[in-house]
């Protein structure tokens, strides 16, 4: 055999290996599970499940969760938790309604004002984590409670109605019979994906999450990375809140917190997909829709109302268990990993 053809052989071999690795169950298990669920529910509920309407409903319903989860991926990649995303979503939802109705601001100033306040919340989180050195877990847990109080105060615990048709159009206007909220989500996903995956800034975010001290010694401003990632997360949570209020045509003081768990479940489940244990946007979006498909299917075959909560909770636990197992196996397999890094988790 000539040298050239051996080389060629090796190349096709490695292409083949890459492809197998790409399609392996470990890498894209969520896609396989998703396909299995679609088939299962199509058989169990042939009338209602495999319809264009169901597709549209799932797509639309989950746009808000997806935006929230996209935001959450950023601080998680930087090694910081944000447990206040649910309340931040709630704050965005109520603030925009309050500014529009109660304060009588115009559409654009109301939205800008809401986003600015959202960013301030993120900044506060970031400063508490980096300057006051409170762990992100505690910081955002506390912040979450503060925000709930704020929501209650601003809204007087009642809904704010009549937000005007201009505002409703933001989320509900349809293009190709798909509402704007879905387009907003897709655009945001692409932006964040581009930054995280294709710029040095994204590398800096992952490096900070991987080993903050080493990142700092390589000249990365790790404090700034953490602050910026928490601000971005807050901004996206606020956007999600605005979109939610727009699509409901109501400012509702209770909407926020229930969104947190699905977002975490999606981000963690997403981290087990495509990128070998790294938090990533594509995996997260896929996870949002895999979870939503499961919930929708269960509803359509007549499962009781508590099933969605159960489903999301179990999915989060399984996703985290899988990530942990994989990383501990990696630790075992690796030539050397320090046990010192293990306690960075908190």
């Amino acid at each position, binding site marked *: 055999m000539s040298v050239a053809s051996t080389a060629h052989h090796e190349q096709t071999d490695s292409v083949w*290996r890459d492809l197998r690795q790409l399609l392996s169950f470990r890498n894209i298990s969520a896609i396989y599970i998703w396909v299995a669920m679609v088939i299962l529910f199509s058989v169990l509920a042939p009338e209602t499940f495999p319809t264009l309407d169901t597709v549209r409903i799932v797509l639309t319903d989950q746009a808000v969760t997806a935006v929230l989860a996209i935001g959450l991926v950023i601080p998680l990649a930087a090694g910081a938790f944000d447990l206040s995303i649910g309340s931040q979503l709630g704050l965005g939802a109520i603030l925009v309604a309050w500014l529009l109705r109660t304060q009588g601001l115009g559409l654009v100033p109301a939205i800008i004002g809401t986003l600015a306040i959202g960013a301030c919340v993120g900044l506060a989180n970031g400063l508490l984590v980096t300057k006051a050195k409170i762990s992100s877990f505690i910081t955002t847990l506390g912040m979450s409670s503060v925000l709930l109080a704020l929501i209650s105060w601003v809204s007087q615990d009642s809904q704010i109605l009549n937000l005007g048709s201009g505002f409703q159009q933001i989320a509900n206007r349809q293009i190709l019979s798909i509402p704007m909220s879905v387009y907003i989500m897709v655009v945001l996903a692409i932006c964040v994906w581009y930054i995280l995956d*294709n*710029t*040095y*800034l*994204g*590398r*800096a975010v*992952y*490096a900070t999450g*991987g*080993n903050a*001290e*080493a*990142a*700092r*010694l*390589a*000249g*990365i*401003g790790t404090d700034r990375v953490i602050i910026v990632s928490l601000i971005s997360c807050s901004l996206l949570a606020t956007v999600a809140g605005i979109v939610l209020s727009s699509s409901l045509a109501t400012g509702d003081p209770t909407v926020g917190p229930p969104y947190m768990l699905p977002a975490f479940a999606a981000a963690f489940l997403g981290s087990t997909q495509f990128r*070998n*244990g*790294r938090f990533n946007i594509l995996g997260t979006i896929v996870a949002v829709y895999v979870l939503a498909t499961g919930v929708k299917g269960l509803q359509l075959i007549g499962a009781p109302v508590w099933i969605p909560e159960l489903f999301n909770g179990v999915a989060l636990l399984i996703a985290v268990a899988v990530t942990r197992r994989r990383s501990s196996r*990696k*630790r*075992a*397999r*690796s*030539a*050397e*990993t*320090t*046990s*010192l*890094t*293990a*306690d960075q988790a908190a």
Partner: protein
Amino acid sequence: MTGAHGRTLVRVEGLTKAFGATTALGGVDLTIHAGEVVAVVGHNGSGKSTLVKLLAGFHSPDGGTVDTRTSGGSPTELRFIHQDLGLVGSLSTVENLALGTNTVRPWRRLRRSDERREARELVRRLGVDADVDAPIEMLSPAERTIVAIARALRGWDELPEVVLVLDEPTAALHGAEVDQLMDVVRRVAEHGAGVLFISHRLDEVLDVADTIVALRNGRVVGNLLRSEADYARLVELVAGHAVEELDRRDTGRGTEVLRVRGLSGGAIRLFDASVHAGEIVGLAGILGSGRDDVCAAVFGAAHRTSGAVAVHGREVAAGDIRDSIRQGVAFVPGDRHRHGAVMTMTAVENLVSVLIPGATSPWHRVRRRSELREAARWFDACGVLPAQPEMELTQFSGGNQQKIVLAKWLRTQPQLLLLEEPTQGVDVGARAAIHRLIVDAAERGAAVLVASSETKELAQLCDRVLVLADGVVVEELSGSELTENRILHASVPA
């Protein structure tokens, strides 16, 4: 103890392990007898740590057997010091040493003062006076090694059937500390225990081993008795060829690059130095002498209590790392896991992770192709194996990780290169290549400051060596005075 060995304690037969396409071990046979010190040598990535991890049950083998029973049938206890030491970073020395000792009655009240006394005793027997209450992560790599050794040795004299497995225990230790450890190893063996000893420092291997097993690409390529081995033979077995050791001639020095005045902080009490372009200056000293603190303090990564550091006449502020990097300073830290690299990222991502502030904008698009091309060049220059830059750093062997961390900083074309233990865990062949790269950098006009626990390295590489003791420079050696012996002599306080 040549020839007449005691009973067999561990027998390994046909051990095989592959990671994906890499064969880490391909059919390894090995026997450890009572009273025998078996040394395993081999190039970086030859499978030494994999062998240890298989013995420890971390990995399960793809084929072959590990028999940890003596020829009499009683079980052998294996004690490990892994290359990554395996201590709990947030616990203190006392707590680490006590871990797993009292499994019979775990609810019993802790006897703190007894534990502390025992811990201090154990550590001091190994010649270290470390703070036994400080969390392990605050200790230097050398101190951590000592704690790990102390833990592995705890109570060994009561157990006759014990095998001590040491994976590069000396990588961070200085001559005097190495001697202590070698004494301990010899004593352990004399007492009837078996020892499996892994090191890239071949002098140590020749010093302590009874039997030497050489691995190459996961296969045993040599199994010699101490009497059949000499340094050149071992080098050949490890590197596959004879290695030309560095022979440095004075190339004359240029303008002053680094000027340090009255520096103090950490273990350093007072440090002054001036390093010129083209000059390689070494820092020697035992554990706690301040040797390990100079580079970090100069870089601005560690706290300075007082003193001024100037690069090319411009002041470098403490704590402003981006400014240091902008001025062309590079820092290869001694603690790879904690400071040197992001282990969960790929090799190429680590390699290009230093952005010169101002030169590359963070919004810049990542150019994967050109990064990979660059990685291929550095992999080649430093001899990193396997040549898969997109593999996660954890999956490389220890020595190969070290090469990647070095390449990461050499790539920035520094004006001032600060190195801590630059060749720790690196095999003899690659070590020569790395020395060459450092010398090249110096010849291109960089000033180099290198802190090393390996006196041999300092003697080969440096133009001048500053010996520290107790936080001050006690001796400056250069020219014909610059020998291993002089360095060793000067670093141990009388």
